[in-house]
């Protein structure tokens, strides 16, 4: 078994699988990070991802362009994010309930629309997958080159976006304002910021990212839509945000670990690993748990997370 693990095909395959599994989680998690840093907890992103997958697929299917597909997925996600914003800012909803409600609603909506539009079919309509782009030179590097440098453009874009997020929170007023609003909305308000508006923007952006993450599933991984395309990726994204201490690179790390644990799990099973399969399936969750216990202690997150802001609380 050990030789198997250290073989080149194993490693490249393992890495490629890790990247595949982590990318949609990472996209959604980066969006959720922004949302949460503004003080809104959006538990509905699993649902938004499902809608993103559906609208993304549908957009691409009818237009013939994957990019229009992504656009549709992102737009639908943003719209749902905005809805979550209306609930939590305008109506001061309890965000946990609102998020759960959104999740249920989106599941229903996606599956409803899916049946309305495509009917009960023998064979799912499909679109061509987003092609991989090999980066000349780098992709020829031995062992890792092929995995790391022949991915589709969304993978590259996501990874390139990470330093942008870092930059945004460190060097721009957007990031500063978002942090202030999530940490101390009273202080932000007193400093003249429009707490509600910033939260709308953040949660809408988070929705957009979740929608893109969902579209990625449909357009870059499977080329089709089913109601069960995302089985818990949105929830993992939420866990990864906490796990990643609300910081971009840590979130990449969290998504990577989860992706890797998953990739490993499939491979162990195929190697006849002497455990009932239910236990190998547990590996990603157990690993996440152990790592949080070991390294993720004392993470509190934005102080005002999930708390509706009310001026009269002065």
């Amino acid at each position, binding site marked *: 078994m050990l030789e198997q693990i250290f073989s080149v095909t194993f490693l490249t395959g393992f890495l490629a699988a890790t990247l595949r599994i982590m990318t949609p989680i990472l996209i959604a998690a980066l969006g959720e990070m922004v949302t949460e840093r503004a003080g809104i907890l959006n538990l509905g992103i699993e649902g938004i991802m499902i809608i993103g997958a559906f609208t993304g697929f549908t957009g691409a299917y009818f237009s013939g362009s994957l990019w229009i597909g992504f656009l549709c997925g992102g737009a639908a996600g943003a719209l749902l994010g905005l809805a979550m914003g209306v609930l939590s800012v305008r109506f001061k909803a309890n965000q946990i309930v609102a998020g759960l409600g959104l999740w249920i609603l989106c599941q229903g909506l996606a599956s409803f629309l899916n049946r309305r539009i495509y009917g009960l079919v023998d064979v799912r309509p499909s679109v061509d997958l987003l092609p991989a782009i090999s980066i000349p030179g780098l992709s020829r590097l031995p062992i890792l080159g092929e995995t790391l440098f022949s991915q589709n453009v969304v993978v590259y874009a996501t990874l390139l976006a990470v330093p942008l997020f870092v930059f945004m929170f460190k*060097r721009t*007023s957007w990031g500063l304002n978002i942090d202030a609003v999530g940490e101390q909305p009273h202080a932000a308000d*007193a400093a003249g910021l429009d707490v509600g508006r910033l939260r709308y923007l953040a949660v809408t952006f988070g929705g957009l990212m979740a929608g893109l993450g969902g579209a990625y599933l449909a357009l870059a991984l499977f080329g089709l839509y089913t109601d069960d395309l995302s089985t818990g990726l949105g929830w993992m994204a939420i866990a990864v945000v906490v796990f990643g201490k609300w910081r971009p690179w840590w979130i990449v790390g969290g998504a990577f670990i989860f992706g890797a644990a998953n990739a490993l799990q499939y491979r162990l099973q195929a190697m006849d690993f002497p455990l009932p399969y239910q236990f190998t399936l547990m590996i990603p969750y157990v690993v996440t748990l152990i790592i949080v216990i070991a390294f993720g202690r004392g993470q509190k997150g934005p102080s005002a997370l999930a708390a509706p802001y009310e001026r009269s609380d002065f």
Partner: protein
Amino acid sequence: MNENAAIISLDGICKKFGPVVANHDVSFDLRVGEIHGLLGENGAGKTTLMNILYGLHQPDSGHIHVGQQPRQIGSPHDAIALGIGMVHQHFMQVPTLSVIDNVILGLPNEREPFLDRPRARERLEQIAATYGLHVDPDALIWQLSVGDRQRVEILKALFRDVRVLILDEPTAVLTPQETEELFKIIRGFVDHGLSVVFITHKLEEAMSITDRVTVLRDGHVVATRPTADTSMAELARLMVGRDVLFRIANGDQRQPAGDTVLQVSDLRVTSDRGTPAVQGVSFQVRAGEIVGIAGVDGNGQTELVQALTGLRRSVNGSIRVGTADVTGASPQHILQQGVGHIPEDFDDALIGEFTLVENLALDVHYAPPFSRRGVLNREQMRRSARELIRRYDVRAPHENVKAKTLSGGNKQKMVIARETSRGPKLLIAAHPTRGLDIGAEEYIRGLMLQLRAEGMAILLVSAKLDEILSLCDRILVMERGRIMGEIPRAEADIEQLGLLMAGIEA
């Protein structure tokens, strides 16, 4: 605009919170270049009035004029645009961010959305130089002492080019030295053409710095007077509605102090920042005496009190209460040894969403007669609460309102009522009169003396030198985590204390 023109005038402002009338038909004007004192007991409506001016509350009725123009101030954003700045009673800062980030928060700049910290820093230094307000721009807020946070709050306002600056009890948390410094700064503002509203409970301060004063009582304006035409006695009478004593006699040092109740030996404690905050402190407090800890805020008093009450682990040394060694014990265990604790911030002692009844039982609910076998006796809790509210003169519509609806002073009275009524043998009081109006302050000081007379040992941490001097039997001065000296009250004078506080050994 001539000298006497009003830059701000509030006209017939009314504001209700549910049944509470916070402001009733209040009219108030601020002239260009004046320092206008706003006085009143706790809960008189001072903060509410200024929050309305700053756009944080909307008045139920009334008008606001800024520079003779009628204005709607819908949010702080609008207020800032009109040149109004406010230093809040509770600091409005983001603790996780740096000083500079807090200062530039919400301000547009030319390179939007990119932050231009170098330029902001330049300007900050300029302002700091002009007004003598120095703070490390890169320090994170949570690492700062209250005095520094106060300065940041002012810097924030100045950075926004204000014409009108509202200071809501800015001196409540400052030492006399810091207060003096602040006054210089405020006078500097006026010289630069600003107008200032200054809220305080300290009549000496009002007398020394303001040009005019307005007194509020129960939400009504009682009077507006040029400062020169009034006196402390008159202001006190206007505020409270009766005559007030100003000096509380410590009384005679009757019987000598009794057994040692608190014995602290070589205590060392680390701060949140990981730096040593208390560095080998030893002292004792005996039954029937008040021991004061004086010192500029941020010299380890906070950490000392936390260590004594079990809220923070000590790294070395021992603490004994009576005969029990409570080093490293839990707060619960320490309180059970007969210790009362008034923390420096009442938000750390009260639960806003709980009723007064529940808050007053917070530390005794688990024992008879308030509960038996884990079941609460609500009736007993209510009876006891009513009694305490009456005895300690907590102003509240009834005992079932939520604590968060009380004014600051009344919250403080709640804490004191709870912590002293249990009849502890040791009371650890951190800034017990901070933010209190003179009536309440008088009451609480008298109470401490009475408790001492009953044989309680009291450790009093305060930044108010007059309070220390008038109450304490012995005074310890703390500076950079050490006790610089111990002075019996009879021998203490302000000058000597000041020197010790500045770290110069006598």
